[in-house]
């Protein structure tokens, strides 16, 4: 199948799924089943596209000279499409289990916007230029808003306001300015290997322009623009999984990485030192978020801050501006995606099975939910960077990139962060397996199968990714 067809498929399948959700709104099983089925097809399509050589391009419309809506998958975009495409059916399956298990309302609306969000994510992944990326970026914000405020109560609406407020204003004030600035400077917005800004901009302005992107892409949750992410934790857990692993934050860091690699260019950033400040900003984000995470006892809140911290790794990879660090950052999108989705799946499973949200109430729960806790432990170890799990490679490569660049401090930051990870994620595992039970649970009480299957698969993915790193590694030249 040609790359063009696959592009149309990846963009079109989620739209088709959302249309079918509306069509089958009175037949819940058909409505939900088709979404999983189409998800599997799109995972296959993403895989096929990943195998094909780059070079295909699809242009939808030319707005004005130099401003087009077009899709040009490059290695990084194909990787992100693969991550999103693979996790989508699993997340959808899980969603079905969760929504039915937790007795949430308005399934149709939820499934509809879930699919639209995936469509927007695919648009971001495959976008051929900054304008296209921006359009789908905004679409993702608006399509996830109804998901975040799904419960519809006062707390949800308040969180929704923070969510929309930060994401929309940062993107309109900073990101759009960056996009227009790049266009005015370079006359094009296309993602080109090696960047398009070299020689077009006074090096003096590079840090400022990069700042427009680093802080304009609110979805990357770089501190101090991270507030929306913990606020959005009021949403049902499948949304949290979507936000953290598949779509929103991954779209954010993906955009940061894509802009630094294909708009600025790694070499250009390296020569001008335009991203030096971002190394420090990312370091701060990594450590500060880890420390905040330790103070949280609500499981989802702790995982949220852990995400903020982990996103800092990817931004760091972009900021270090070496090929190895960029490869590490790209790999971390996949590694953290598999790991964090598992953690959130587990959090949701715990909620559905036992209605627990606070870590202090989960003593001894591991013996009651062995599969969930096993998966949780595997994913947590991957995020800490323990071999033979996926997170080890990306952390290792980031460290290598830091060494290439002479940033010994970054090595320290990464090590301290790993230790902090060990503390705040390890606590959950230790409490689960070794603490004396805080409730009387008899025997094994796991969540529904529709939740257990996806979380087991994603947990095993963390293991698999360690051994298939060659397949996923992107070479950004050097």
């Amino acid at each position: 199948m040609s790359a063009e067809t696959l592009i149309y498929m990846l963009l079109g399948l989620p739209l088709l799924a959302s249309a079918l959700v509306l069509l089958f709104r009175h037949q819940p099983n058909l409505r939900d089943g088709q979404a999983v089925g189409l998800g599997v097809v799109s995972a296959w399509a993403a895989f096929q596209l990943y195998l094909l050589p780059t070079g295909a391009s699809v242009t939808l419309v030319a707005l004005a000279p130099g401003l087009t809506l077009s899709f040009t998958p490059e290695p990084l975009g194909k990787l992100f499409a693969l991550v999103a495409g693979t996790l989508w059916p699993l997340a959808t399956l899980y969603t079905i289990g969760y929504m039915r298990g937790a007795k949430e309302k308005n399934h149709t609306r939820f499934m509809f916007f879930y699919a639209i969000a995936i469509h927007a994510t695919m648009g971001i992944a495959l976008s051929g230029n900054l304008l296209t990326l921006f359009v789908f970026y905004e679409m993702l914000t608006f399509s996830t808003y109804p998901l975040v405020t799904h419960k519809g109560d006062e707390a949800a609406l308040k969180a929704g306001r923070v969510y929309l407020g930060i994401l929309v204003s940062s993107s309109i004030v900073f990101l759009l300015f960056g996009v227009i600035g790049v266009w005015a400077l370079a006359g094009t917005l296309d993602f080109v290997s090696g960047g398009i800004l070299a020689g077009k901009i006074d090096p003096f302005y590079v840090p400022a322009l990069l700042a427009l992107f680093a802080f304009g892409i609110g979805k990357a949750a770089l501190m101090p623009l991270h507030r929306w992410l913990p606020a959005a934790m009021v949403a049902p857990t499948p949304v949290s999984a979507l936000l953290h692993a598949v779509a929103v934050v991954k779209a954010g860091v993906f955009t940061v990485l894509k802009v630094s690699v294909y708009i600025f260019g790694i070499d250009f950033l390296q020569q001008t030192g335009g991203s030096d400040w971002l190394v420090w900003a990312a370091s701060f984000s990594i450590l500060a978020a880890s420390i905040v995470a330790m103070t949280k006892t609500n499981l989802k809140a702790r995982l949220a801050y852990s995400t903020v911290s982990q996103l800092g790794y990817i931004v760091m990879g972009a900021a270090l501006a070496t090929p190895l660090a960029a490869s590490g950052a790209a790999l971390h999108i996949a590694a953290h995606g598999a790991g964090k989705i598992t953690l959130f799946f587990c959090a949701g499973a715990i909620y559905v099975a036992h209605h627990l949200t606070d870590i202090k109430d989960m003593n001894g729960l591991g013996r009651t939910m062995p599969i969930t806790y096993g998966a949780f432990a595997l994913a947590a170890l991957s995020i800490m960077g323990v071999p033979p799990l996926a997170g080890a490679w990306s952390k290792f490569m980031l460290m290598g990139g830091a060494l290439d660049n002479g940033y010994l401090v970054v090595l320290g930051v990464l090590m301290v962060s790993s230790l902090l990870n060990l503390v705040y994620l390890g606590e959950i595992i230790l409490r689960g397996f070794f603490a004396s039970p805080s409730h009387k649970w008899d025997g094994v009480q796991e969540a529904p199968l529709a939740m257990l299957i996806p979380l087991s698969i994603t947990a095993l993915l963390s293991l698999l990714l360690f051994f298939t790193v060659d397949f996923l590694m992107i070479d950004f030249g050097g």
Partner: protein
Amino acid sequence: MMQHLPILQVLLPLLAAPFAALLRGRELAWGLTFLTTGAAFLISIALFLEQRALGTTLVYELGNWAAPIGIVYVIDAASALVLPVISGIGFIATLAARQLVAAEIDRRDHGLFYAAWLLTIAGMLGQVTTGDAFNIFVFLEISSLSAYALVAMGSGRDRRALPAAFNYLILGTVGATFYVIGIGLLYMLTGTLNLADLAERLPQVEETRAAFTAMAFIALGLFLKMALFPLHFWLVPAYAHAPSAVTALMASTATKVSVYVLIRLIFGVFGIEFPGLVDGVGLLVLTLGIAGAFVGTLAAIVETDLKKLFAQSSIAQLGYMAIGIGAMSATGLAAAFLHLFNHALMKGALFLAIGMIAAQAGRATMGTLQGAGKQIPITMTAILFGGLALIGVPLTAGFISKVYLIRALLEQDFWLLAGLTFVSSALALAYVWKIIEAAWLRPRPEGAPELSETPSQYMPAWIMVIATLGFGIYATPLVDAAFAAAHVFIPATVGAP
């Protein structure tokens, strides 16, 4: 027939006006206005297409008297672009006027209302087509005098329309007087009123103080008419208290025509080489434009009456057009033309939608909008899109004008100005957000009046919304036309579009 289109463009609405005044019964007067504005719109489209196809200037000599003795009507790339804006908005606003006017104007006055309505449209079309400086003044007065009357007609519903109209009249007259003094000086210096002739003869006297004074008078008079900060105080009350249909028509056209006349006079007559133009007028317009952009946007953010809010936003948007003019480059002028066009579409959509709400609820305020997203979703969505276009979100027309404006500034290395322009346009998010929050994120309060919508009510606004989106998604022909218009005044030197 085809060669008479330039004169028909103006003459048709001008001649239809007295008939409208004579017709009794509101449907007849409206019907005549509808047909006339529709025909004027078709004519302007035909002129635009013909001019674009030929690529030359079409000159129409009145009574076959050649210039400079006779008066000529000139259709070049610039006027051909502005005519469809005025006649098109006039047509769509007329479409909406049927319901708005029925709700807001006393039945007996409908004939007079539509007569004034047609006159103001004829006056604006005349200012754009004519190639004679004094003729511009005549049309300026025709359109202004009838506009004062239209604003005052809001008094049946809102007594504040009378002082607003009076204010508007005084300041409008001052502006027109300044303009005519400037033209008088030019006539004294050169002995001609024909614009092309003036442009030819002015270089011989360009070092004189009188020529500079003439430029100052003309520019100042037009600043007043286009409501450039700080000469904008007449605009907000006039827009806020006028009948809703009048607000929609004027907000999209009246000030735009003055922007056009300013460009025509400053660049077309004095020319970019004129001493003191770039450093004097250019810098002044740039400064006032950016100041107006901030003042208007900030005032809009704290405003709660929707008509006033969007009137303040118009001050800001006119500031952007001024910035484009002040950049003193082909790209800047193209950006000004693009924004003139695009802003007319989005403000038309907004004021038509708000007018429908105001006609139902008596006023349109943030309070009226609370929770309205559920009651009148289609109308509110039109307002949402209009608002997004004002911010300059991609895929709306506002984005296109914004990128070219920023590019014009960066071409000249005005980094700070580009930043400020961008920040002020992004600040528009604050007042659009207020509307989103009121309409969708808050429940409808108990006892709030019931709002409803029918296709005939929201259709006019939606036509404009679709145009806004259409010219945002496929803007290439418009960008080409805007650059062609800009190149009438400043030949292509730097970069293609």
